[in-house]
């Protein structure tokens, strides 16, 4: 597939950015997974994959791809209104941190430099009516 080598490189870079991955050798003390990644795993990761790689044709792969969505206002609004996002029942700040984990952690090179993070305020404004 075109571009997959580049994405793979991005993924390797990404690996270093996920806090858990810095845990190192297998005999080291396991480190608790951070709050944002935990929330991602429990609310999203079953479907989208613990590393953001899922089932083509059924559930979109986020890894190395999702950043493009976060680059436009419409794309960001779309993300906020996805059923499993809007109805996650995570509080505003946690949901913002999950989306940022997705965009800046899993998104890798697909996330353009300068992409603004999601804020609790934005989450609140977008989802006020559905909760």
């Amino acid at each position, binding site marked *: 597939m075109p571009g997959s080598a580049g994405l793979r490189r991005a993924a390797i870079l990404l690996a270093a950015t996920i806090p858990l991955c810095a845990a190192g050798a297998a005999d080291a003390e396991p480190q608790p997974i951070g709050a944002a990644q935990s929330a991602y795993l429990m609310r999203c990761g079953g*479907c989208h994959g613990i590393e953001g790689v899922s089932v083509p044709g*059924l559930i979109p792969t986020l890894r190395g791809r999702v950043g493009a969505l976060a680059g436009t206002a419409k794309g960001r609004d779309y993300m906020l209104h996805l*059923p*499993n996002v*809007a*109805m996650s*029942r995570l509080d505003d700040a946690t949901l913002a941190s999950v989306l940022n984990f997705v965009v800046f952690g899993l998104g890798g090179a697909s996330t353009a430099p300068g992409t603004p993070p999601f804020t609790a305020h934005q989450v609140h404004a977008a989802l006020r009516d*559905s*909760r």
Partner: protein
Amino acid sequence: MTDSPSRRRLVALAATLLVASGQAGAAEPDPIPQTEQSDVLTLPPPGPHRLLVTDAVYNHAKDGRAYLVDGDSARMLGMMPAAYNANIVADPKGGHYYVAETIWTRGNRGTRQDLLSIYDAHTLALSDEISLPGRALITTKRQDADISADGHWVYVYNMTPSNSVIMVDTITKKVVASVPVPGCGLAFAWGDHGFASLCANGALASVDVADPAHPKLVRGKPFFAPEKDPVFEQSPTDRATGRTFFISYGGMVTPATLGPTPTLEAPWSINEAAKQARAPGGDTPFAVAWRPGGWQIAAYRHSDAHLFVLMHEGQYWTHKADGTEVWELDTATHALVRRIRLPAPSDMVGITQDAKPLLISSSDSGALFLLDPQSGAVLRQIRKLGDNLIFASAPGE
């Protein structure tokens, strides 16, 4: 081949002669006819105690089935295959049974086929098979399929894991729409042209499908906390009036009237109806209380608006534990009418809709019990009707 009535007459005549000949004595065996015709029976006219019982056969779910049982004689009248987490929906007009099922072309492998198989309710002969574009494959919930009050539309819930409801026209025998219900699941039919789904945020989404090509979806505000005290999928509902009672893990009952824009009433507590403290929630998971639980957790009787809820004593997260009692509740006064001790822990409760009602329960070894709802006495039982009897329904429900 064609003279069986006259044959029967002959046999009868022979029998009369035997008796008349004075040898009849005590317990004379029936005469053995020379030849006997094999035929296929049809069902007797249905009464209020014609029960439809779903057997999920969890150990080999591809062999699921549904039984028709006569509640007055506790005898099986016939069955229909219902493969793989199937849903069986009875035509409110009594003409047909609709089985939403999934079959693989080579038994356990091959091409997956999702079907709405239609059976004639008088002969139990397969009359049609409609291909569906999918089905939710979930350990069967009653509301994975439903039918409009007039019997025109069958709604089949689909999950891929995106959510939609497939609409089948039972007159033209065609799939007419696949209605997206993003973030929501199940189909509670209301009236002749609509259904409601429960959503992951604790709200209802209601869809008016008067024009199936342009369904109108209306989302309500969340009315329960789906992680702290979710409502059961098997909450009892009446398609004709839209009257529905959403029952939560913690025993709170939210009365609703489903329609284009559903209305919700203030919740009340089953425990408080029984003069007990409300069942504590997930924050104190060790606290023991009486709680609803099982699979078909409740049944509703229209004539007096009474609910029959399967209850057990247990800690939080026992929402699938079998019920040891059925609590009859008056939904008008929010009062406990009586507690009925079950002969065996049951994952389902059913009630017939007539003036001499039967209460229905099962056991984990596949027994079906028919109880007197007043005294709780076991009137009749079938020791082993099947493997996993998860649903029972009666005409007019």
